């Protein structure tokens, strides 16, 4: 049951992250949910690494963490710029792509 439970946790966290992304209004909350997604993937990687007795999974989890950090930094920078422009973080009103 060991590996199975890790995978299950990973899926649950993933789903919560997805739900958060498609529902939340605030930009910061969306970024936090993105971090959730990335963390669930990392968890998955590490679980399989332990199961396969191979360090590669953990190495990739390390890379993934670094990339998540970079991406979160950029995301926040964009939010800051957006806030400066629109004075709000409510992403419901940022819809210039509409018809």
């Amino acid at each position, binding site marked *: 049951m060991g590996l199975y439970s890790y995978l299950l946790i990973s899926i649950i966290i993933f789903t919560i992250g997805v739900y958060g*992304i*498609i529902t939340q209004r605030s930009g910061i909350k*969306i970024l936090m949910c993105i971090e959730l997604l990335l963390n669930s993937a990392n968890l998955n990687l590490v679980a399989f690494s332990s199961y396969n007795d191979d360090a590669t999974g953990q190495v990739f989890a390390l890379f993934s963490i670094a990339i998540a950090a970079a991406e979160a930094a950029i995301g926040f920078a964009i939010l800051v710029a957006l806030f400066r422009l629109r004075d709000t973080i409510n*992403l419901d009103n*940022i*819809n210039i*792509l*509409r*018809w």
Partner: protein
Amino acid sequence: MFKDYAALIVLLPVIAFVLTLFLGKKLYSGGALLPIAAIAGSFIISLGIFFEIYPDGIVQQSIPWFSSGISQMNMGILIDPLAIVMLLMVSFVSLLIHIYAVGYMSHDPAKSRYFAETSLFTAAMLSVILSDNILQFFISWEIVGVCSFLLIGFWYHKPSAAAAAKKAFLVTRIGDVLFLAGIVMLYVNLVKIINDPANAFEIGSGNFILQFKTMFEAIPLIDKTQLTYITLLFFGGAVGKSGQFPLHGWLPDAMEGPTTVSALIHAATMVTAGVYLVARTFPMFFNTPATIMTGVPDSLLIVAIFGGFTALFAATMGLVMNDIKRVLAYSTVSQLGYMMLALGTAGAVAGTQAVSCSIFHLISHAFFKALLFLCAGSVIHAVGTNDIREMGGLFNKMKITATTMFIGALALAGIGIPFIDIGTAGFFSKDLIIEKSFEFGEKTGGWGWIFYGFAILAALLTSIYIFRLWFMVFTGKPRSERHSHESPGVMTVPLMILAVFALLFGFLHTGFFGYVETNFELMGVEIAVHEGEVVHPPIIIVLLPVIVGVLGFLVSYVIYYKRMLDMSKIISSENPLYKLLYNRYYEPKIGADLIGVKLTHDVVAQSGEFIDRKIIDGLVIDTIISNTIFKISEIIRKLQTGVVQNYASITILGVALLLVLLKLKLGGI
């Protein structure tokens, strides 16, 4: 030794072009010296090659260029007797005209552009002459056309000049399209011949397809009707470039350019490229079947018809023009008609002698027509107007110009003494063409006499109009108060040199004929291009051209010098014939107004617009189909909310569905 530098004949003027284009303004004398040096270099190399290959050598060099399918194209140089005489003429005349232009264009601020463009033009023309395959010939031909466009529109701020340049380019383009079609047709036929195993035809090693040599070797194998079409298409190109009827309209309009341009391009060199094309591919013309008139190859007959008609047609218009350059332009068109007539009629009668006849007239025409144009330029430079009705009595002030122009007029009218063979260059060349057309008439009879009629009538009219020009410009009382002075030395010296050639070139005719006639044999072409028998026409026929020339002189003398008859009382300006000629047979109106505006705009464009507006738009605007589509799109439009999260949610949904699908189809991921 000079043979190795044959490529420099073309490259030197090209280098001069590039340098003058970019550095022209900074050079001494506005960039004139560089092209002059380059063309002098080309002339010296051509002279050296001439002395090396006379009497029976050929220079052939080629490098492979690109291959397409099975065929390999090349770039190469072929200098045989035909090419070398043309090279010498072109480089020499171009050199003299450049020297003249130093004086003529001295006040013009854009003269570095002028010299660059004429340098490029000379390079392209030399390349036309010495190219050894028809593809390179065509490419150089096109470059020549472009340079003509640039030079005619040299003073492009004048709308008439810009329009004339455009017209010249478009009309010669029609000819070029025909020429290209001919090349394509030729290529297709050659490939068919090569691929057909029944013919034992192979391109020799070191030879390439589309070289003239290969073309000539394949002539016996080409289907005869195809050969007729190919040669007629080539002639179409020559019609455009050499201004034969019906594509002649651009030449008189091209006089909008500087006079030196008219002398270089439209008298001596570019317009002769058409004649050169027909001469180069003469074995093909000669071997077309004789279906229309027995004993006369078809294409040659068509060439003669167009040439002869143009000769007469243009000469009639030259009678009434009042612009000094227009008269000379029509004279050029007429003389080009003579050259084509020579190729056609003498070709049927005397074989390769036609080529030497025609090219001899081409070269002598180059000399005296360039002379006439440069004299006209000298007059225009001095007086400031082109209209001969405002000139008169210039003889005392411009003696050198007047005498050289008189010599040119004598040469054009073909004055000389027949039986002891002394005369101007035009006497030898033009009168020989008239004799050959007589022999043609004798050989074919019936309709064949029309060519002789064309030739002799045109000779009469030529003599009349050229002496009319001379008398109106240089004699009598000045018709308006215009200051005039003799031109500077840099302009009169080329005039004198050209006058010497116009007088004396004729005496080279025996050596010339003997040399150029061997042209096709030297190329190693085994075609039955036979010599004609030497026929002596009756004495009266030999004398007739000279009589006609002198008659024209007397007519002009009476009317324009002695003023015994006042032309304006005999033929008023309202005379319909006069109006027909003066309006150039309404050709510009037909061409531009009728075809250009009325046909294209009123008929084609407006009907197109009608169809577009009423019919096509009527199908879609405000009908049931279009309205329903509008309503549906209003609904579907709401799908694009613009909120990125909605898009994300749909994406996730899609991924989920995809996984479901995978599970169902493959039974597990």
